[in-house]
């Protein structure tokens, strides 16, 4: 269970998000939505422990501030956004790094369980046959999936995602969301994600948190939190009208 109580945080002493409180029960997925600059990534970073906070973040009834880094990493994993690769590793080596917490003995190699786990995660993201490739030879979408496999290899109970579908084509976007949905349906796993595509968010999430200028505008199930008027006012446009208009165009193309 993840609980945030009156969390404020930001950069250089300036709060970007303020008074954030919510509870996410085991097995529930949460999507954070809102316009650019509203503090979505900052909130993800705060939950990951990457920013100092005011207030409280409670993971499985324990205050995050009283937990060791390894203990937090055992419960929460973050799927990284793409960044520059300075030194290239193979796909297999990269995913194996997700087993850091679980690997015993600093001088020992990976156990057979670690190896199987890495293979399983690579298979899940469809990259098993590319395991010996260098990551600097992969496309953005493939690299995104490598990072997802590494996140899964960490075996957390909560995964934090920050725009995970950015570099993926439509097919992989749908596959990723399906896979995450399936992953979160087991063992009380949860996902907290920032997704720009509201259609994908609706597919993945049980709960929505709508952020506006660093504050919670609404929180709850889709029907409760994502009302037409609220979304339109947060994004400053007719969101639903825009989507329906797009769908009508597709319909015309499909029926041509």
């Amino acid at each position, binding site marked *: 269970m993840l609980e945030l109580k009156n969390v404020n945080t930001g950069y250089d002493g300036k709060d970007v998000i303020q008074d954030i409180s919510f509870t996410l029960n085991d097995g529930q997925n949460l999507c954070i939505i809102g316009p650019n600059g509203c503090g979505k990534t900052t909130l993800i*970073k705060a939950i*990951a*422990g*990457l920013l100092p906070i005011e207030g409280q973040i409670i993971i499985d009834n324990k205050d995050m501030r009283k937990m060791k*880094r*390894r203990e*937090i*990493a*055992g419960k*929460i*994993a*973050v799927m*990284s956004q793409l*960044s520059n690769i*300075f*030194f*290239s*590793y*193979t796909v297999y*080596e*990269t995913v194996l*790094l*997700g087993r*850091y*917490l679980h*690997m015993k003995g*600093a*001088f020992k190699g990976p156990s057979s369980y670690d190896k199987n786990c890495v293979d399983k995660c690579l298979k899940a993201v469809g990259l098993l046959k590319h395991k010996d490739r*260098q990551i600097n*030879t992969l496309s953005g979408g493939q690299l995104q999936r490598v990072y997802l496999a590494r996140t899964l290899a*960490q075996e957390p109970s909560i995964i934090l995602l920050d725009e995970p579908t950015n570099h993926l084509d439509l097919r992989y976007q749908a596959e990723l969301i399906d896979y995450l949905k399936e992953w979160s349906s087991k063992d009380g796993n949860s996902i907290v994600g920032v997704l720009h595509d509201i259609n994908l968010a609706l597919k993945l999430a049980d709960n929505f948190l709508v952020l506006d200028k660093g504050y919670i505008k609404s929180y709850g199930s889709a029907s409760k939190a994502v009302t037409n008027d609220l979304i339109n006012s947060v994004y400053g446009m007719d969101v639903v009208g825009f989507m329906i208009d797009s769908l009508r165009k597709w319909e015309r193309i499909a029926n041509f």
Partner: protein
Amino acid sequence: MKTKLYILITILICIIVIVMGIGIGSVYVTPEATINIIMNKLFSTPLLEEVQESAVSIVWNLRIPRTLLAFIVGGALAVSGTVMQSVLKNPLASSYTLGVSSGASVGAGIVIITGISLPFFKMFTLPLFGLIFGLMTVFLAVSFTAKLDKNMSNNTIILVGMVFSLFINAILTLMSALGREHIQQLIFWQMGSFSSREWSSVAILFPIVIIGLIVLIRYSRELDLLTFGEDQAYTVGVEINKIKWILLGLSAALTGSAISFVGVIGFIDLIAPHVVRRFFGSSHRIVIPMSVLLGGAFMVLCDLIARTIISPSELPVGAVTALVGAPFFAYVYFSKRKVR
């Protein structure tokens, strides 16, 4: 399989280069005679008839300690550079980035100018001062960074390191100006040399490098994770600040110990890690030991060139590492890149 073959080739290169380093010089000693002398000294096997007593003395008392010291220093500098590049996530970082060479030079300068000799350490007074001042500089630079930036971000570390280096270099310039009669000695020390180094230097430096190497291999997973960025390493469970202190401290200690014995020798710490990564990939479990072997072999080769090319005079080995290393590095780095 390919990696195993490369490891085997690297070990063979090291053996060949070491035998060359011991055998070649003003008096040429054949590889058979070299091995015979080593076996005689280590296991009391009989000497070959054609091996003269003078050759035994040259090989055992001069060439072997010099060659081994060059190998150890090269290995220490190379592995230190590897760690710095990975921790600071900067391919241009080196073991000198945090000012260890400037600090060590000031320490050496104090001993050269004042001529002091500590009672117990005697001839090791200079290395001791070099090491202490080198480490002190790094300690101050990292502590200052921690005060300025709680997260100890890489950019802050590099900037503070550069500022400290420039500041300490200014002190060194002042010292040189005040003690002009020692300026030549100081400049030569800064260029690096392995001449007149004895077994005692090897005996001190060898365990330091071995311990450093073992500890670094222990942290190879953390080093791998750090190359992906601090946030990623942190969320996987690495205690970033603690690990950074350990790795930067250890890297500085290895460089400080190495250069305090032989003076400042550049370039190896920058190129060896890149050459190793080109052939062995980036995993530090392989990169760390291979950096030691290739860095060591390269240093022995450079020292061999430095002492034979204008024999009986010697060139500063620091100049040779750059003269030989720059084109070699360019060839290895850019030819591989072209293939891709």
